[in-house]
Structures are given as C-alpha cells and as structure tokens.
C-alpha cells in the first residue's frame, strides 16, 4: 500500500492541481467561474497555447528548446492573413503558413544541431529575427480581415463554434491523441525519448539523433504556425505583437505538466493539464476580480513550486 501511495503518476498530481484551482476559483468567483460563457472563453483560448505546448513538449523531451514559437506563429499568421487579403484560397493560405512554420523549424533545427549551437541561443536569435520581420512587413500596423464573412466554411472548420465547443478545441484534442500515440506507441517516440534521455546511447544503437531533433523542431514550427493561423482567423485580424510571450507560456505548460528541462521525460497528458492550469489561472483570476497584474506573479510562482516539489519528491524517493 505504501509503495502505491509513493508512485502516484505525475499526471494525477497535475490533474489534482487543476481540480483544486477549479474549486478555488468557483468559490472565489461565487460560481461564475463555471458558467457556460467563461467555460467557452477558456475552451477558446486554451487550444492555441496547448497546440504550441504539445510541440514544445516533444522537443523538450528530445532535449532541445524553442524560444521562437511565438514569433514563428506570428510570422506564419501574417503570411496566412496576407494570402487571405490577396484573395487566395484559405486552404492554400493555411498550407503555405504551415509550410513556413516547417521551414522556420528546419532553420532552427539545422543551425542548432549541425552548427552545434545550444538551441536556447539559436531560437533566442530567431525569436527576435522573426518578430522583427513581422514589424518590417506590417510597420506595426494592425491588419483586419474578416475570415468568417469571406470564407465561412473555412472559419467554422478551423475555429467556429460547434455546440459550446469551439472547433479548434477538437483540433487540439485530436492533436493530443495523435501526439500521445506518436510519443508513447510509435517507434519515433521511442527515438525521441532515447535521444533526450541519453544521446550517446541512442547514437550507439543506431538512432540518427540529429534527424530526430530536427524533425521535432520542424514539428514545433508547424504546430506554432497552426496556432497562429487559428488565432488570426478567430480574432479576424493580425497585430504585430500576436503570440508575444507564447514561448514562455508553452514551456511553463510543459514544465507544470512534468516535462523535464534536461530532456528524456515528459507526457502529452501532463502538458494538456499544464495548459488547463495556465488557462484556469488566467480566467479564474479575472472572474474572481483579482487584478490581472497578479496573473504572471502567480503563474511564475506556480512553475517554480511545481518543479521544486517534483525535485524534493525525487530526492526522497531515491533515498
């Protein structure tokens, strides 16, 4: 029995934290936290963060970082919005944007892996560069484009409301299932864990660790681009700061969900809950009428707290 109580899976703990937050915010907001309107708002907001966080999780398990996901999603969204404006098919626009995301991921991956530069530095550079490109092209102006009116079917398919659930929540859900299958049940997932867990062992066993890492970078780029296009489509426009700070939120979601900063460990389910926790915090504080300025203070503390508890837990288990 004792042994069982010690080996509580990480997902259960993070699930518990999400549940506790729901309880707290339900109480402090006098019930408004669980009204359909608030739930719908959260379901609308969570997938854009969550989709990026999924990619970031896979990449972190492989032992690399990507700080450029926010800028990448913005540049891809800008490309999509521009294509919309030129009157191109929205599907072509989406595919081009995803392709651009893939190319951005490829650039990050090749420079980090083949150039032997820590990805923290590579992607810090590309974060600035791609955000800079966005400003160069838009001159900081807001671009408005009503996708819903011009391409109603595309809009509904991507982000429209299907009952109370927004369409992109279903996309998010589908991607979670896919990511789970790939990570835990597929050969490629085994290679990701091996690469992040012990690069030398993976290499000795014939795994092409460079290719695994580059593939993960590309995946992150595509997912970031998808999230960017979803957001621009949903808010019917583009502004140059779109996705700013998303990189750190995505890492926070992954880390709260138990993804290791050193590679080799992490779960898709954990990241799903991590995304929920961040979303609950953001909207729970609002409906509880706590000043929005507290959001980052609390989120930051939570990230450090979760990792600290995890470490103490591990040390105790080892002794």
């Amino acid at each position, binding site marked *: 029995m004792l042994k069982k109580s010690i080996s509580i899976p990480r997902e259960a703990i993070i699930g518990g934290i999400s549940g506790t937050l729901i309880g707290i915010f339900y109480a402090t907001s006098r019930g408004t936290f669980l009204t359909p309107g608030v739930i719908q708002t959260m379901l609308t907001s969570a997938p854009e963060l969550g989709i990026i966080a999924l990619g970031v999780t896979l990449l972190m398990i492989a032992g690399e970082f990507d700080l450029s996901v926010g800028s990448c999603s913005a540049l891809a969204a800008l490309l999509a919005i521009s294509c919309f404006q030129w009157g191109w098919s929205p599907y072509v626009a989406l595919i081009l944007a995803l392709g651009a995301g893939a190319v951005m991921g490829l650039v990050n991956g090749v420079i980090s892996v083949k150039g032997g530069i820590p990805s923290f530095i590579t992607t810090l550079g590309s974060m600035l560069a791609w955000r800079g490109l966005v400003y160069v092209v838009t001159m900081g102006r807001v671009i408005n484009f009503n996708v819903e009116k011009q391409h109603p079917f595309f809009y509904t398919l991507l982000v429209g409301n299907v009952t109370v659930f927004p369409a992109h929540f279903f996309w998010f859900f589908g991607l979670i299932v896919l990511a789970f*299958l790939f990570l835990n*049940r*597929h*050969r*490629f997932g*085994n*290679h990701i*864990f*091996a690469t992040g*867990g*012990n690069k*030398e*062992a*993976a*290499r*000795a*066993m*014939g*795994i*092409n660790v460079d290719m695994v890492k580059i593939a993960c970078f590309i995946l992150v780029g595509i997912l970031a681009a998808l999230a960017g296009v979803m957001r621009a489509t949903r808010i019917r426009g583009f502004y140059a700061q779109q996705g700013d700070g998303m990189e750190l939120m995505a890492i926070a979601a992954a880390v709260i969900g138990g993804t290791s900063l050193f590679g*080799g*460990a992490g779960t898709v389910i954990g990241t799903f809950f991590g995304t929920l926790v961040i979303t609950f915090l953001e909207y729970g504080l609002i409906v509880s009428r706590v000043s929005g300025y507290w959001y980052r203070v609390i989120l930051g503390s939570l990230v450090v707290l979760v990792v600290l508890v995890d470490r103490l837990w591990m040390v105790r288990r080892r002794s």
Partner: protein
Amino acid sequence: MKEQIPFIEVREVHKWYGKVHAVKGASFTINQGEIIGLIGDNGAGKSTLIKILAGYHRPDAGEIYIQGERVNIKSPAHARSLGIETVYQEQALVDLMSVTRNFFMGREITTRGGFLDFRKMDAECMDVIRTMGLSISSPKTLVKQLSGGEKQGVAIGRAMYFKAKLVLLDEPTRNLSVKEVQKVLDFIKNLKELGIAAIFVSHNIYHVFDVSDRFLVMARGELIKDAQKETTTIEELISVITRH
C-alpha cells in the same frame, strides 16, 4: 581451424586528433568467438581504437576487413548492421526508459505504420532476461532502478539477441561491486559460448585475464603486444604496460 577467415581484420589503422597521433598503425585480427582483452594505461589509445570499430570515428589511414571484405564503417548504425555491437557502461542504456524500450531501441518491433508491438517486445525481452539469469521482474521496469551489473546484463543480452558477431565492451566492470563484477564476467563467458567475439577494454587486468583468450596491449597509440593467454601471465602483461 587456423585457416579460417577471421571475423575482423584491422590493418595499419591510424587516427590523428589534430597533432595528436592517437592510434599509430594498429594491426590485428579477431576470430569468431574469441574474447580479446584490450589493455593499456590511460591515454594509450584503447578508447579511440574501439570507437573506430564502433563507427564513431573514421580512421585517417588503414583498412578494416570483416569476414574478408573491405569495409568503411561509417556510423554506429552501420557498425551495428555489420554485427558490431557496443556496450558502453555509461552509454549503453537510457535510464529514464523501460527495459523493453531500451532493449529494442533503434530496432523496435513494430506493427504496420511503425507502431510499437509491446506484447511481442516484452515477451522477447523477458525471455532474454530469464536466460541471462537476471532478476528483473518486469520489462516495464525503468533502467534507472537497475544495479550497474543488471544494466550490463541487459546491454549484453541485447547484443546476443540481435546476433552480434563482435561485442565491444568498454570498461564494463568499472564502479561495480565484487559480486556484480563476477556476474558481468559470466555474461562475457556466455558470449563466447554463443560464438560471439568480444573486445573487453579495462584498466583492471585481473578482470580481463580470467575471461580473455588473447591480449592486445597498447601504449602511446601503439599496439605493443599481441599474446595468447597460454603464452603469457598477468605479471608479464603488467610489466609490459609499466615499461612503456
């Protein structure tokens, strides 16, 4: 028997790291099922030589023949496909992964679409664990929960399972307890019984001596002695190493 083609033949292999001449013209052969003790002091070039055979480094000069055919070992994956399997103590396994996942790492058994066939992999893995006499109860056990000797056992069992012809063991007994060292030496004897050759690299001549058939001694990048076990003694080998 003496006329058989050796499993591997190394001819005049050189390796430079910048100006450092790490391996100076090593030549030797290894027959099938032969256990070679590769000994020498720190920096003698043992590791470099092993890494060339494992596909980590390319030799700057020289030739390697496997079963009589000239090969250029391009990568660890290529070495593996030629039947050369590496068992590094620190680098053989991934601590955070299960025994099964480690066992089949890079050579997973999959169903259509590349999905892992855990039922089959778990069963095969447990078979090997039992025949090796390891007391690992579940293939889902994380490798970090195994002892140093058990880890070596899993890595060596993996080499056997995948029908390696030559296993490279780099310091497999380092940091192990006396009991565990004995276990690892037994695993190496198992290799021999299956007709698998091995190169056993170690500082500890006493560990190497017991299980090896032949010894290669290196000093400052040179292969200075190649002796059958019957023709030499521990004392002689030690004096060869210390004299250089």
